[in-house]
């Protein structure tokens, strides 16, 4: 028997999912948290460990894939994910036993809880990213050669598709094209696999971690105390406390196959005089301090308001703001050669190797 989540857990999860993505606009997370809390009034929400499932049980990743209109601008009707699960079951001729998050941050960190409530399926405390990446091929399951397909998609229009593609990069291309035509986002179910495969190749404790992060950040305590607790819990380090001096959109050439346009933020550490540069493409991909790499994807980079200890949305960063730039090491799988091939800066069009590649 797994743990039953409380409304308080959901509120903390909301903060944790926001922090790990350092998202552009957290509204969709807020909307889902509110929905989940309402739905929990009459139904229990069970979070289970992957070890609680039989090795052959069928489990499937649940998540939104976006390219176009924001989720918050095209609110889900509510039947999309159930439609995807049914499509996977019909395709494989088997019943799904449990679901897991496609990512451990942002909207996909919280959506599966609503789907669990709607479907009465337990939610596994694991995911295949350990953070959030923009591409569906960027998963630890892909590193472990677990097939991505069949992938079921359903959009707000009610249209549904099932993609069967063996190559995860091709799957990414096909899914992204469908998502664009579905309006901007699609509910998806993908990486259907056995609980045994998920145990071996997944990242575990994802949802509990987001809840714990939320507990730390939601507490009425000083910014320094929050940072100290994040350092103890996540091994987070503060790269800089610096003031934003320049924000630039469309700052690098970009591959049109990648969702979103690149942007950059330049900051100045007023004590040391160091220049900090953030390269952004949906998430923060690279942090340079006086030109040297201080963090690079797959490292997780997040921003905190230095005065209030709240998460800073990338969209809200303005010249003159003082922010803390934090670095958190990603799941170990991402620093293997195969992991870096999928998710180091080069994979995002930035011609830089992750410093850890030399030890991979």
């Amino acid at each position, binding site marked *: 028997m797994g743990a039953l989540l409380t409304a308080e857990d959901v509120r903390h999860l909301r903060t944790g999912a926001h922090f790990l993505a350092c998202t552009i606009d957290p509204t969709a997370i807020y909307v889902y948290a509110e929905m989940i809390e309402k739905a929990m009034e009459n139904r229990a929400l069970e979070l289970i460990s992957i070890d609680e499932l039989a090795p052959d049980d069928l489990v499937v990743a649940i998540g939104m894939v976006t390219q176009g209109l924001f989720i*918050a601008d095209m*609110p889900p009707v*509510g039947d999309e994910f159930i439609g995807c699960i049914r499509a996977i079951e019909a395709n494989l001729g088997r019943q799904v036993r449990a679901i897991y998050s496609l990512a451990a941050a942002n909207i996909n960190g919280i959506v599966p809880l609503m789907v669990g409530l709607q479907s009465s399926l337990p939610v596994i405390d694991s995911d295949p990213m350990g953070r959030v990446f923009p591409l569906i091929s960027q998963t630890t399951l892909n590193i472990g050669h677990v097939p991505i397909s069949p992938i079921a998609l359903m959009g707000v229009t009610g249209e549904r598709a099932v993609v069967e593609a063996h190559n995860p990069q091709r799957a990414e291309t096909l899914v992204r094209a469908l998502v664009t035509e579905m309006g901007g986002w699609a509910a998806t179910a993908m990486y259907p696999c056995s609980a045994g495969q998920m145990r071996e190749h997944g990242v575990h404790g994802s949802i509990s971690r987001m809840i714990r992060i939320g507990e730390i950040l939601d507490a009425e305590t000083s910014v320094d105390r929050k940072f100290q607790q994040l350092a103890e819990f996540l091994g987070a380090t503060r790269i800089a406390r610096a003031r934003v001096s320049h924000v630039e*959109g469309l700052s690098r050439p970009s591959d049109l196959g990648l969702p979103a*346009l690149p*942007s950059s933020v330049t900051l100045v550490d007023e004590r040391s005089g160091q220049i900090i540069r953030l390269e952004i493409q949906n998430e923060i991909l690279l942090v340079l301090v006086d030109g040297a790499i201080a963090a690079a994807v797959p490292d997780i980079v997040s921003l905190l308001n230095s005065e209030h200890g709240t998460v800073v949305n990338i969209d809200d960063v303005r010249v003159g703001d003082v922010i803390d730039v934090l670095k958190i090491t990603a799941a170990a799988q991402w620093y293997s050669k195969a992991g870096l091939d999928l998710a180091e800066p080069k994979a995002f069009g930035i011609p830089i190797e992750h410093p850890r590649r030399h030890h991979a």
Partner: protein
Amino acid sequence: MRIGLRLQGTSCRALVLDGHSVVAAAAAVRCTTLAEAVDTTFEELRHELGTEITKVTDITSDAGRVLAARKPASVIAIRISPRPPADAFHVTGLPALVEPVVARTVHVGGGHDLRGRPLAPLGLEAFLAELPGILSGEVRNIAITSVGSTASKDHETRIADAILSSDSEMRISISSDFYSSVFRDRDYTAILNSALMETGEDLAAMLDASGRRHFPSATMWFAKNDGGRAPLARLAVIPIHGLRPEPAMQILGAATLAGAPDGEVVICADSGVTVGQIRGGLPATRSVIRQGYEASLASNAAVVEPYTADHPVRPAVPSVIADLRSGQDTPLPFGLVPTLAAAHDAGQVGSAVAPLTAWIDRLETVSGRADLQLVQRRAEEDAESAAVQLGASPGLTRIIESNVYAMPYGNPGIVRIRVQAAGEVSGDTIEDAAEIHVRTPFGAGEGASRWAPC
């Protein structure tokens, strides 16, 4: 000369600026009705100014407190999306205070994607069948919000046209008039705007009549949430932009009194200490007013944060610390030392000096950096034109903010362009002000209020 008015309940308070000098600052006049209070205030000002009343060119009213206090009218919310919500959990939520305002919700099929392509055909026929039922009720206010209306407002305007062609007296607010990439923010903003339109209409008519009577040569304006002003007649159409102007006007007023068009402004009030920024003579703004985890109001408004002990101080940047508390017997918190005492109501000074402001906030498709610069320049020209259309002189407009935002997980090539222009009809701007000079204020002491013989 310019007058800054603050309206609250059935009281009115005025301050007169001549250039950058405060020439009159009256105590609040309270009467049995707001109209009487405004009339009495104007009458007293006429008396005080004597023959100089012809020099009064502009009167700007901060009507935020009145708009917030009056009971909002009932609204019919029309939501346009490809399909209606499948269950109660997926119905768009509104803040608890506004939820009761919605008398009825109508779903219409339709909506657009980020490229402006239809996601579903507009369900106009089904809507027209429902329209007589909508019009036969007592509710006269309508809010229309469509999925993707930041990219195309076609479905919203077609539904609005359908309503107006059956009943031209309906008050309609469409969500594409307010920029937010969040459906529930636009929905909330359009609903609240619609609910306030009647009050805005009444206030505009009352202020206009009183203004014409006492200051026939002056132009009437209302104070906006972004620290700017707009023609008073617009208060009937976009009252939402005049709902919360006070924080912006306080920042602008304190900066004006201190002669600081750029820097940080710390406002110490009875309710606490807040901090904002002034840049180029206007408060730094955000395009939404956030309300915790609830829907945000899609209105450009001054960014105001609580001041804390950890506040990062920039020695090289000028700071204005305005002590606006009603009593100044105790020291300020956080060891702050005021640079500006509450000689005048900073908010009213802000209203009096607020420039005309106009915004362009839209999506554009670009193919590269050169193209981006082109669309940004075009947006800047459009923003300046918009300021001129509001009444600014072409030679006295300037760009305050011009930004491009990448759209996360968006369609390739689509960016958001956000530009603010400010302008003046004539005369000086805050940037020209070395210092505000104070000259013979009249009436009772600041902060006091009195009953006038209305």
